[in-house]
């Protein structure tokens, strides 16, 4: 029994892995389907009084539909899963049990972060593959390079979201507080992007990468924010380790 296995069991036995993969795979199926049949859906609900004209769907619309859902509900589930693992104070006595047996809090937090962030990223990748396949079947193929790069950048953003949860979780004793704190941080961040050209350097810039890259966008436009995201994630993890090491139990 190791701390890595502990985290794996946390994912499996609490059905968090099921929730994560379920959400992303569900939207992977539903996104392209919605994009393909959007005109028919709108026509059915519009009735006779209203005529809604939408352009014919293109392959990128399938991925865009998946990405929109994935970055909202998917992100929420990923943050909840990460907060559940990274809020050490949520079960104080268990934290005492673990904290008193390891020399460095990094040894405790690293498996929690890697497994939680890894599960979120893997679920997103799985959902993306499903969306890619379904889009190809219903709407036509999207460029593999753009899809792969966009998915990788989305995974990086989820790893950043988990790092935010780690930093917030090191300061709270409740999972709900951590979830709310992390979501507020993640939602406020794009607002900073409204200030001049800062937005293209922020982690939130990565949220739209998948849709943009399958629509012909250039991956070079995301390298800066990817580097910033990786650096800020590392900084947040360092802060979480430091806070966990100095806080009182």
């Amino acid at each position, binding site marked *: 029994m190791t701390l890595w296995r502990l985290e794996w*069991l*946390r994912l499996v036995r609490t059905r968090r892995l099921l929730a994560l993969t379920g959400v992303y795979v569900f939207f992977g199926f539903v996104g392209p389907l919605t994009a393909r049949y959007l005109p028919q859906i709108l026509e059915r609900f519009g009735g006779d009084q209203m005529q809604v004209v939408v352009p014919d769907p293109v392959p990128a619309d399938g991925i865009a539909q998946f990405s929109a859902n994935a970055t909202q509900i998917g992100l929420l589930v990923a943050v909840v899963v990460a907060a559940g693992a990274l809020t050490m104070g949520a079960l104080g*006595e268990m934290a005492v049990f673990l904290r008193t047996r390891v020399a460095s809090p990094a040894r405790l937090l690293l498996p929690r972060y890697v497994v939680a962030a890894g599960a979120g990223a893997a679920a997103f990748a799985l959902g993306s593959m499903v969306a890619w396949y379904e889009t190809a079947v219903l709407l036509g193929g999207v460029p593999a390079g753009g899809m792969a790069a966009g998915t990788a950048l989305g995974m990086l953003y989820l790893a950043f979201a988990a790092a935010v949860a780690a930093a917030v979780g090191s300061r709270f004793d409740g999972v709900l507080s951590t979830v709310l704190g992390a979501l507020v941080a993640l939602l406020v961040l794009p607002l900073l992007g409204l200030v001049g050209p800062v937005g293209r350097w922020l982690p939130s810039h990565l949220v739209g990468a998948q849709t943009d890259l399958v629509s012909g966008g250039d991956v070079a436009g995301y390298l800066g924010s990817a580097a910033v995201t990786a650096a800020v994630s590392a900084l947040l993890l360092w802060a979480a380790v430091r806070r966990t090491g100095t806080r009182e139990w």
Partner: protein
Amino acid sequence: MIEAAGLVKAYGETRALDGVDLAVPAGSVFGLVGPNGAGKTTLLSILAGLRTPTGGTVTIGAGPSEVAVLPDTPRFDPWLTGREVVALAAALAGAPGGVEEALADAGLDEAAGRRVGGYSRGMLQRLGIAATVVGRPRVMLLDEPASALDPAGRREVLDLVRRSRGEATVVFSSHILADVQEVSDHLGILHRGRMLLQGEAGGLLEGRVEPAYVVRFRRGRDAAASALAALPWVQEAAPSGDLDLRVRVSSAAAAEEGLVAALASSGAAVVSIRPEAPSLEDLFLEVTS
């Protein structure tokens, strides 16, 4: 093995610990007693590295993986089995063996495969004890280890603490003074954040508590009581029950030389004479009052 000097822990204006010195020899069992709010848990938390003292120093002669801590209400992730909790503790201690033995010693061998979420409070306490002793830590810090246990469980914990003497340095707190007196070879009395008294248990008890003897009579108790009360080294000769007389003396040496002779000259029929063991409760009340 464990030393602390001038430990202070302040929460605003309140001092949970106020200049506590502590010396726990290697391999000893140190019983920490004190009323609620005395600072016992705070002291154990500081020794465990879970809280930072406001002032003073702590030295523990063991690394983190060699120190095991048992909180007063142990809880574990409910989706783990008891066996997995103990196996995790063993792995973190760097000694993955001995899991089944620790579970059996704690009386959990049959429940080891069940999820912890279904354990009673007593079972959680036993599991905490198994997770503490597995891997043979060099230092064990136990906060009220028997508080949630039934009499049989309490007895097992006391036996376990007693068996650890010489192999590990144990500091344990308890409200049950008889338990502390039974298994501790060193004692500390903490009161309002101050260590009022500490040292080797036998010396503390015999040095501080006035010696007393219990004499059982077949007849002549009242006459003997009057005769004894007149002696200068007898503090008190008080009847106890129907047959006994409790003789409190100022000097054990004087009583050893004169008590038998005094009883014989009173003409009473004596069944037995036994020294009354000094009680930690008496010492505790004397020191904290």
